[in-house]
């Protein structure tokens, strides 16, 4: 894994030297967005369990918690992504202030306010991570049941934080690449992708840990619930994605529709079709039947596929700023190797060093006894 990360890092550096800052920064931004989606989606799953008081998911809560350990790493990645501002974002370009929509948005889209928002988002995310994940891991040794109460009280607050910061993040870091465009539901769109990808990553982590025998007591019924959530969020993503597309297609307003035109015609058309089929129809039909949601092997390939589709989704959102055509080649593979290997190193470190089951949670026995029927 270290070797893969090192090779990826070399490829990343080579991208900067060979293709220049534009390609490098676009890929870096892509992976920043992808990381934010997976990390915040994992935090969302943890908070969702606390907020609903679900007991079935207690034994496998460590999986999203380990994935959420990516959160502190968002800070350095995000600070490097800031260099993309003057290069890729349309509102920073000279002459941008002369176009009407950008004049109206100038109060929001300017360097100082943008930086303040980024720092605020990162601070809130790391703070939430410290409370939710560190608190849960600390419970392993303290065995203090009041920690669970505190986490359950904090989770609704985190949901508000998540809604505001993720919407803001979507508008700032993806929408404002082409600042003239706007879509009110874009934040929800990114959230839908975040929830599906985090669920897929959680499933992979659960399957990985269980194969190593480190998740005793996890049955097909637990897996069925996770598969059902993935199935549900797949439908949610499809609904949101299509709603956004349909409304703008129907209204056909020039200030909205150009964004979809770039992404649905020309060389991007196959990517768009792949996204629609791959991100919705494939997992939808693959997870439809009850037995499929209990099938380890099927869940594994569906999860890998969903994560790949989330990458395609973010690629589809961001790479058109580089101009016409599909910008995919060895630099993208190098970035993927670097970030995937790095992310796995971070996540597996938690798996090695911490308890793989929240042994201090008073609801653990209830969760282990979970049966569907």
């Amino acid at each position, binding site marked *: 894994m270290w070797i893969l990360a090192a090779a990826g890092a070399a490829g990343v550096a080579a991208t900067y030297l060979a293709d220049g800052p534009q390609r490098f920064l676009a890929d870096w931004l892509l992976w920043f967005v992808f990381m934010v989606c997976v990390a915040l989606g994992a935090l969302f799953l943890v908070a969702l369990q606390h907020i609903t008081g679900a007991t079935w998911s207690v034994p496998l809560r460590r999986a999203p918690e380990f994935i959420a350990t990516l959160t502190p790493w968002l800070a350095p990645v995000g600070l490097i992504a800031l260099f993309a501002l003057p290069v890729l974002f349309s509102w920073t370009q000279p002459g941008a202030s002369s176009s009407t929509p950008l004049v109206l948005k100038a109060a929001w889209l300017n360097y100082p306010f943008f930086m303040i928002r980024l720092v605020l988002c990162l601070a809130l995310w790391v703070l939430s991570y410290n409370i939710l994940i560190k608190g849960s891991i600390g419970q392993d040794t303290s065995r203090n049941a009041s920690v669970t109460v505190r986490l359950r009280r904090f989770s609704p607050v985190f949901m508000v934080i998540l809604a505001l910061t993720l919407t803001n993040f979507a508008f700032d870091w993806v929408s404002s690449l082409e600042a003239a465009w706007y879509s009110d539901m874009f934040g929800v769109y990114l959230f839908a992708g975040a929830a599906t990808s985090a669920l897929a990553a959680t499933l992979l982590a659960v399957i990985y840990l269980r194969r190593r025998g480190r998740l005793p007591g996890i049955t097909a019924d637990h897996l069925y619930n996770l598969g059902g959530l993935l199935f549900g969020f797949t439908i949610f993503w499809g609904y949101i994605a299509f709603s956004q597309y349909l409304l703008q297609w*129907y209204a056909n307003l020039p200030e909205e529709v150009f964004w979809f035109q770039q992404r649905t015609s020309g060389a991007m058309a196959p990517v768009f079709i792949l996204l629609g089929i791959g991100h919705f129809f494939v997992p939808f039909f693959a997870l*439809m*039947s*009850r037995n499929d949601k209990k099938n380890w092997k099927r869940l594994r390939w569906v999860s890998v596929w969903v994560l790949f589709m989330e990458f395609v989704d973010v690629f589809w959102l961001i790479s058109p700023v580089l101009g016409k055509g599909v910008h995919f080649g060895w630099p993208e593979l190098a970035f993927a190797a670097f970030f995937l290997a790095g992310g796995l190193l971070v996540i597996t470190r938690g798996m090695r060093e911490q308890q793989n089951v929240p042994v201090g949670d008073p609801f653990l026995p209830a969760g282990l006894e979970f049966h569907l*029927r």
Partner: protein
Amino acid sequence: MSESVFGTLALFPSADALIEAIPKVRKEGFDRLEAFTPYPVHGLDDALGLPKSRLGVLVFIMAAIAAIGAFAFEWWTGTVSYPLLTAGKAYNGWQAWVPVMLEGTILFGTFTAGLAMLFVFNKLPYFGNPVLHSKAIDEITRDRFALMVAPDHGRLDTDAAAAALRAAGGEAVEMLPVPHYAKAGFRWWARTAAAIAVACVVAGLGTAWAIRTFPTTRPMIEMESQPRLDAEAADSFFPNGRGMQRPPRGTVPRAYVPILATNAAQAGQALIDPLPATARVLERGRRMFNIHCAVCHDRLGTGKAWLDSTYEAQPADLQSATMREASDGMLYRVMSEGYGTMPAYAADISQDDRWAIVRYIRALQRSQNAPARDLTAARPAAGAAHSSQRER
């Protein structure tokens, strides 16, 4: 030991005893088992070996039929049967059909799930499950757990079943006959159909009576009920019985000049621009031209329609030599009466506005075909104006 047996039932003291008993009874060759418990028991479904429900398959088939049917219906009506352009979209605008497909899929799926569950798999109408009339029912709803051996293909050896249940630890074994009222016979169906028919007739007559008897409250009828006569309405005021009268022969509207020219040559002579040469007229012409004409003739009058991808007619190029040489009256006449595909605009644009448009077309033609001498003539004049202002 015949078709009138509903099942043989035995009671067990606990859920664990029930679950342990099930494999023993199944080993004796009785596979059609039913369990009755006071609360849901984990593991019961697996122990009974219930097959996977076929409801999901049925729902999937119906939902797929709805999705494909909705798509086919909208595609055929909107593209094949009566091609209709809506909001400038292409003919096969599948994006607009997805909401209907989605709603149809959900509708068919949920209705299939609900109705098939009730009428196909739970075999409604089935009156009074015999277990409700068993001796054991009091205890089943309190603290005991019952297991029943049901007939397989209508056949059940009740003695063997009772022995198997007792051997597995069952108590209070009883045989449940099928009561005569349990199944819906012809009389039930006839009575149900008659009841539905009577209900329809009563409801229909009642509604009709209510509509006639009670005044219906109509909100916001100010526009509808005015003291006026509607078009083609009858009225007794005039002797011919019509509400609206034909205008007397030869009547013209106010500020209306009839077009007397019947061909292009006459039009040039007979129709003469009555408007004064002011900037206001030109401005009015520009406004009306951009509203009514520019969609097809372009803002510069080049005849390049904005709708060119879907609009098949070729609008006239107002900058062409023919159009530049055409008389004012001829342009006015075409606007009033239409030409080729172009419809008549007499009803939409007032006479003065039509003349103002002619004026503006002339200005457009001049702007696109300005002779060089315009420039040389304009320059000293502009300079002179400036200098004269300075002198003042």
